[in-house]
């Protein structure tokens, strides 16, 4: 099963890993004693661990290659369990009803701290669904999504700070400004394709952050804006716990609204045009589809959602500064979309919950948290490149009258 060659490669890979992790795992500087501890045992563990993982991967690959050829009905089996489950209307209603009840009572059975984490996770669900319109549905690789999030957040922070405008008033304004920013950026850059678009949007995201950091008169620079009002409930000021609870329900409502919208977009004339545009731009144009307009619609819709979430983010944390809007943020949102399963609503939701909640609960591993996070991402890319939930696009079903 394992040839000598694979074993030798395994040993080499293990040694390479020992070498790579050497500064991290083996050398430990003790600043008090002013000595360096050499933890050779760790090197051994890394080596053996890597070798074992390598063998497991090799074994899995071997199994995959030597399986009897896939049966024809397998293509149907590839449809993920969840998609099959919710295809049935009764099961779907039951599932959604159950989830809704769980969501409604959730804050009463867990601590405020847990509720707070859940709010964050829900925000990423909505951000993921927003980016999914751009990346998953329209096929535009946008690496600067966080810029629109920042536009929303600063809209609320500044309008609240200078003019005392409230959360509900700024919510549509923040979304609208972000959408306008999306259109302004989209006009010049949407002619670009694939990698080029990715790089330009990435640059745009960084520009927005740098402007916020350096234009102190406008944005107060790196020190940020504090004392942003939380959303008021019917004009009342809420206690901290009350407002967290309120925020939680706002987010639940938002998520439902977003799912509703994205779902409808998927089954529309516009949604079809996005899919067609993803497949063949020239044929699309020859069929009379305005490429620019259709792409702009996707881009600005995504930006609109990012803007809304930005307003909510500012209201939730009551303090924002440019450090919250780095590229890492865009990367996390994109990972949610890609890992969850591009284009699949269920996938994006699960992706967001896993990606945001997992690190929270991996806190036990404290300093290795990011490492574990990275390892999970890499493992996903190897074993399930289509994402956790593989997309099945609902196609138009025609009933002849």
């Amino acid at each position, binding site marked *: 099963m394992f040839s000598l060659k694979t074993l030798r490669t395994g040993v080499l890979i293990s040694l390479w890993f020992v070498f790579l992790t050497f500064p991290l795992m083996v050398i430990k500087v003790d600043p008090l004693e002013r000595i360096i501890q050499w933890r050779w045992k760790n090197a051994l563990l890394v080596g053996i661990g890597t070798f074992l993982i390598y063998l497991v991967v090799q074994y899995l690959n071997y199994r995959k290659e030597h399986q009897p050829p896939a049966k024809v009905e397998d293509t149907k089996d590839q449809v993920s369990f969840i998609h099959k489950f919710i295809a049935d209307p009764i099961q779907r209603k039951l599932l959604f009803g159950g989830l809704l009840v769980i969501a409604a009572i959730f804050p009463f059975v867990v601590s405020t701290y847990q509720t707070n984490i859940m709010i964050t996770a829900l925000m990423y669900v909505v951000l993921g669904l927003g980016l999914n319109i751009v990346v998953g549905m329209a096929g535009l690789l946008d690496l600067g999504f966080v810029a629109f999030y920042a536009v929303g957040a600063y809209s609320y922070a500044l309008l609240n700070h200078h003019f005392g405008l409230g959360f509900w008033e700024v919510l549509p304004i923040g979304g609208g400004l972000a959408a306008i920013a999306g259109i302004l950026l989209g006009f010049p850059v949407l002619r670009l394709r694939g990698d080029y678009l990715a790089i330009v949007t990435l640059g745009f995201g960084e520009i927005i952050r740098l402007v916020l950091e350096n234009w102190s008169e406008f944005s107060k620079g790196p020190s940020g804006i504090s004392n942003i009002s939380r959303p008021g409930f019917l004009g009342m000021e809420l206690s901290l716990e009350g407002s967290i609870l309120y925020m939680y329900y706002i987010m639940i409502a938002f998520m439902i609204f977003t799912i509703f919208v994205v779902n409808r977009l998927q089954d529309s*004339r516009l949604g079809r045009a996005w899919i067609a545009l993803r497949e063949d731009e020239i044929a699309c144009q020859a069929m*009379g589809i305005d490429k620019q307009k259709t792409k702009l619609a996707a881009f600005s819709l995504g930006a609109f959602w990012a803007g809304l979430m930005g307003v909510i983010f500012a209201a939730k944390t009551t303090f924002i500064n440019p450090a919250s809007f780095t590229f890492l943020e865009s990367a996390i949102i994109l990972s949610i979309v890609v890992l969850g399963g591009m284009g699949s609503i269920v996938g994006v939701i699960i992706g967001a919950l896993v990606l945001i909640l997992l690190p929270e609960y991996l806190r036990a591993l404290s300093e290795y948290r990011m490492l574990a996070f990275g390892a999970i991402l890499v493992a996903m890319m190897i074993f399930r490149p289509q994402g956790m939930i593989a997309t099945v696009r609902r196609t138009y079903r025609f009933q002849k009258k």
Partner: protein
Amino acid sequence: MSNPILQVSGLTMDFGGIRALNKLDLDVHAGEIVALIGPNGAGKTTFFNCVTGIYTPTAGDVLMTRPGDKKPISLKGLKPNYVTQKGLARTFQNIRLFSKMTVLENVMIGRHCRTKAFILGAVLRNASTRREEQQIAEMSYSLLEKVKLADLANELAENLSYGAQRRLEIARALATEPHLLLLDEPAAGMNPQETQALIELIREISSDGQAILLIEHDMKLVMALSDRIYVMDYGKKIAEGNPEQIRTNPEVIKAYLGEDVDA
């Protein structure tokens, strides 16, 4: 006689140093079937690309007079989607279907430029949007019936046979309600039965009053269908006339049909 639907004059297209089209003139009148033939590399597909806005021609003009219009409009330099909107639709020599969409959805895409629902319509799904969606689907389905693909409506386009894909391209182009239909080698890769069925299909489309301009290598099809034939070679028009005139034209035999005779 009224203005021709399509009137191309002095059309020239340069790619770097290569002159792919050289001062080409061509007319298509209402109700006509016109063929454009010539050896491989003569510039026929380039001609289609210039007319439909995929390339912007170096020189010359492309005028279109829609039925009912008094004055022609210029299509030169318009983006492809506007050209289609004005009433000119095409198929591609190297089939360009949306392979991951169903057969029906492919045709529905063709309805895009004749329908309106946008973001708000999609989200609200109000009565007029629902009605529009229904009409898109029904019209698309009836076009599939016309090209005999209705049984395969829910199949993915990539699963169709070659001949069926060519017919689907025709249905998709017809869905844009063109005044003039441009077909780029519609019979390429078809077997004789499929070609025969295609000839009948093109006749049927033509008898609905549709003007057709087609590029084709299959001489049987060209001779059977065309009212007039243009022959080009090295980007230039070398002959023009009805099938009988073309068949006996010595220039044409030398440049084009001659190849077949020798072979």
